[in-house]
């Protein structure tokens, strides 16, 4: 048995001010670390939740997003009759041929322009996205210039609130409803009647086709067959995969940014921890000598100081996580490079981020404490005792 943990803990407690200051330095770093992870997680969660694993998205070959894609009408009708498509309660296939375009809108705050996805839908579109629920108002009447706006769009963009009007394609479009799509990308979209939109935008082709699989395992076979059909120039993706791909570029950027920032910042915090632990060792030279004289081994001294540094790091980790947990209240909206459109998402904390942050803080403490702890364990007993 070695030196009790309470020794390390109480030493931190005794010099509370120093401990708190050092820990808050590390806490800030953990905060940055956790916040960037939370942002990436929030982005991916939003986009992944947007898709459903049973849904398949069909796009024109090598188009990266629905906005770039175009599916000709003849191909669409060929695809409509595939046997893998589930049949809805009304006896019609659960398949929607949609139009997806970007429109430039101005934000309510700051008047800055941003691209918003506008989706031309059919009645099947709603059945395919059970997450989407009308929160206010009513659905657009078919054949009319009416739209519904996602909650996040309705809140942030001019002309998208309930009862307001938008002007595009030489027509005025009235917002007759606001829908809630939870934490999905649909909250950042505007929906309206597809045929009206195709007319207004003078788009003779669909952007994408979405359908529900009758049997989820049939996907691979379907994909292989459709993609090798010489009459078709489409590519099939599970909806979940499609949205995951949409998040990739941005998530990668956030991840690299987070990594670089964390590495640079942790240098500062580790230096802080090193200084603190060196001072802790310097102030307790006699104590160390005494413990050694009593018969404690070098490794016991080493581990006592390492435990102290680890605890210090964990304090920082807890402080940082505590602060970062409040970031969950914040929603960020920015342009997603993959689709070129505005997307709103929140900082999201999960268990894995908590563990990573705590581990990271402990590692910072460890790195900061290792040199001082070695110094403590290498002190000569006689000299240490004389240092009073």
């Amino acid at each position: 048995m070695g030196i009790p943990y309470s020794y390390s803990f109480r030493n931190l407690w005794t010099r509370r001010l120093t401990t708190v200051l050092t820990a808050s330095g590390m806490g800030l770093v953990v905060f940055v670390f956790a916040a960037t992870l939370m942002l990436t997680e929030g982005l991916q969660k939003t986009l992944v939740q947007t898709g459903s694993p049973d849904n398949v998205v069909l796009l024109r070959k090598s188009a990266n997003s629905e906005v770039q894609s175009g599916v000709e009408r003849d191909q669409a009708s060929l695809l409509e009759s595939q046997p893998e498509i589930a049949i809805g309660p009304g006896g019609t296939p659960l398949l929607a041929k949609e139009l997806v375009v970007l429109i430039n809108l101005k934000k309510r705050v700051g008047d800055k322009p941003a691209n918003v996805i506008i989706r031309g839908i059919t009645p099947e579109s709603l059945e395919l996205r059970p997450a989407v629920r009308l929160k206010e108002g009513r659905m657009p009447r078919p054949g009319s210039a009416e739209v519904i706006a996602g909650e996040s769009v309705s809140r942030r963009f001019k002309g998208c609130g309930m009862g307001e009007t938008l002007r595009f394609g030489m027509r005025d479009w009235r917002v007759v409803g606001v829908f809630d799509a939870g934490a999905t990308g649909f909250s950042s979209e505007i929906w309206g009647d597809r045929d009206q939109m195709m007319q207004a935008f003078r788009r003779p082709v669909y952007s994408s086709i979405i359908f529900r699989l009758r049997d989820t395992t049939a996907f691979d076979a379907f994909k292989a067959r459709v993609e090798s059909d010489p009459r078709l120039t489409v590519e099939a993706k599970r909806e979940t995969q499609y949205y995951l791909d949409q998040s990739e570029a941005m998530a990668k950027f956030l991840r690299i940014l987070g990594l670089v920032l964390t590495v640079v910042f942790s240098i500062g915090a580790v230096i802080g921890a090193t200084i603190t632990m060196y001072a802790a060792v310097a102030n307790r030279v006699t104590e160390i000598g005494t413990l050694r004289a009593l018969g404690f081994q070098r490794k016991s001294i080493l581990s006592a100081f390492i435990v102290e540094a680890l605890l210090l790091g964990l304090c920082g980790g807890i402080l940082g996580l505590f602060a970062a947990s409040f970031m969950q209240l914040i929603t960020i909206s920015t342009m997603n490079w993959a689709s070129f459109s505005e997307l709103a998402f929140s900082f999201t904390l999960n268990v894995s981020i908590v563990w990573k942050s705590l581990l990271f803080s402990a590692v910072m403490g460890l790195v900061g404490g290792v040199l001082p702890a070695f110094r403590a364990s290498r002190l000569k007993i006689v000299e240490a005792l004389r240092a009073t």
Partner: protein
Amino acid sequence: MAENSEPIVRIRNLSKAYRRGTQVIPVLTGINFDIARGEFVALMGPSGSGKSTLLNLIAGIDSADQGSIQVADVEITSLGESDLARWRAGSVGFIFQFYNLIPVLTAFENVELPLLLTHLDRRERREHVEAVLNVVGLADRMDHYPAQLSGGQQQRVAIARAIVTDPEILVADEPTGDLDRASAEEILQLMDRLVQAFGKTVIMVTHDPRAAEKAHIIRHLEKGELSVT
């Protein structure tokens, strides 16, 4: 009684020098010295005479250049770093001038420290600690932190810590050096009692003649050599 028993400490031809830069300063030169079991020995001498070095060597916290030190038949000069630490934990009790209690641990925990290096379980440790705190008369103060105790009380806690593992020898470096006369007297009486009633062997460095009087044998060190009084 001391004369006819086997010596517990046997020192032969012990030498030690310090280096300061290129200068070599001899501290001890060819010391031969025996201490019998149950003795109370005082080492005296002017500062720089090497008395503390001798004490440190016997206690196994400093290493000799030459010669042999046997404590209870263990040749400690041949022990390695960690064997020596293990040996100290079981065989030596330390009493320091400035008590050297750990400020963040209570009296009880300070006394318990050396027992953490043994195989005793929690209950046994508690029994041992309470017993020695009773011996030094501080059983009612065991939850106090060092800062809440007077100098004399702190030194008594330190003595309790020194004897809790029932070591072969107790080494004391100026144990009364930081105390007022009354407290010093208390401490000396306690040490005397440890020798008389519990048969402990005590080796004490001091330059307080009053303290030395309590000892059975006083050895003087001068320029690294021993002389008998």
